[in-house]
C-alpha cells in the first residue's frame, strides 16, 4: 500500500499562529491582572514561541495533518483525527476540484449526493496526475 503524508506547511503555520496569538493574549491579560502592567521581554517571547510550537504541533496533528494510503483496491484518508476508508469500486467518477488559492482536491463521486474529496495539494501530489490515477483506479475497481 502506497502511503503519502507530508507535513502540511499551511496547516502547521495556521496552528502555530493561532496558539502564538492566543498565548500572547493570555500572557498580556494575566500579567496585567496580576502585576498591573503588561510585561514584555525576550525571555517571555521565546517561551511563547516554544509553547506555541508545542501546542501548534499538537493542534496540527489533531486537526490538519493529512495522510493518504492507497492501492488498487481502495484507500484510507486521515485528516487530523478523522479517518475514512473506502474502496475504489464504490465510486463511479473522479474529477479535479479547485478549492481556491491554488489548492486542489480530487473529488470522487459515490452516489448522487455523496462525494469524497482527497486534498491532493495538502498531500503535495500533482493534482492533474493524481486525478488520472484516481480515474484509472475508479475504472479498474469496476472491472
Amino acid at each position, binding site marked *: 500500500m502506497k502511503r503519502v503524508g507530508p507535513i502540511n506547511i499551511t496547516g502547521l503555520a495556521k496552528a502555530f499562529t493561532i496558539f502564538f496569538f492566543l498565548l500572547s493574549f493570555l500572557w498580556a491579560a494575566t500579567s496585567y491582572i496580576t502585576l498591573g502592567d503588561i510585561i514584555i521581554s525576550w525571555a517571555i517571547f521565546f517561551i511563547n514561541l516554544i509553547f506555541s510550537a508545542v501546542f501548534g504541533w499538537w493542534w496540527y496533528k489533531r486537526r490538519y495533518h493529512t495522510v493518504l494510503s492507497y492501492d488498487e483496491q481502495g484507500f484510507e484518508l486521515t485528516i487530523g483525527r478523522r479517518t475514512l476508508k473506502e474502496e475504489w469500486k464504490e465510486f463511479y467518477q473522479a474529477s*479535479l*476540484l479547485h478549492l481556491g488559492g491554488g489548492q486542489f482536491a480530487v473529488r470522487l463521486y459515490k452516489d448522487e449526493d455523496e462525494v469524497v474529496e482527497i486534498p491532493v495539494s495538502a498531500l503535495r501530489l500533482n493534482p492533474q496526475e493524481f486525478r488520472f490515477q484516481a480515474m484509472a483506479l475508479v475504472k479498474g475497481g469496476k472491472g
Partner: protein
Amino acid sequence: MELKDYLLKLENNLIVGGGRWVADFTESFWEHQVGGLTFDMVVTGQMRVRGFLISRFISWIAMPNYQAACFVYSQDPELKRLSKTLKVIKGFMKEGELDWSWLVIPREGAFSQQAKAVVEKDESQELGIALVDLSSQEITSSPSYIGRRMPRFVKCFK
C-alpha cells in the same frame, strides 16, 4: 502539440490562469459522458468568484451568479454531428441551469473550410464555439459575444 498536452494546458488556464477573468472554473471532468457523447473534458464553474472578504463582497454585489461550462470535444473535427453535440450541450445546460457555455473542438491538423464556415455562421447566443488547430495554432470562433471572447482564453499553446 498533442491533444492531451493541450487539454492539460487549457484546463490549467481556465482554472488558475487567464480563465479566471471570465468565470471561476472550479471542477474539471475528463472523459465525461453527457447524453450519449463522451467529451474529452468538461470544466464547470460560475461567474461569481469566491475570493476572500473584499473580493468576495464586490463579486457578490457586482456580478450575476451565472453558471458556466467549457466543453471540449475532439471526436467530430468535421462537425458532421455538430447539431447533435449542440443539442446535448443545450440539454446539459438546461438541466444544470447553466447560463452560457463554450465548446472547444481541438484537432491536430487543419479544419476544412466547410467546418470553419459552419462555426462562423453559428447563431447560438449562449454558446460559443471555437475550432482549435493544434498544428498551426489557428483558432476560428463563432460570431456571438460568448464566442468572440473565446480565442483569448483557449489559446494556450505554450
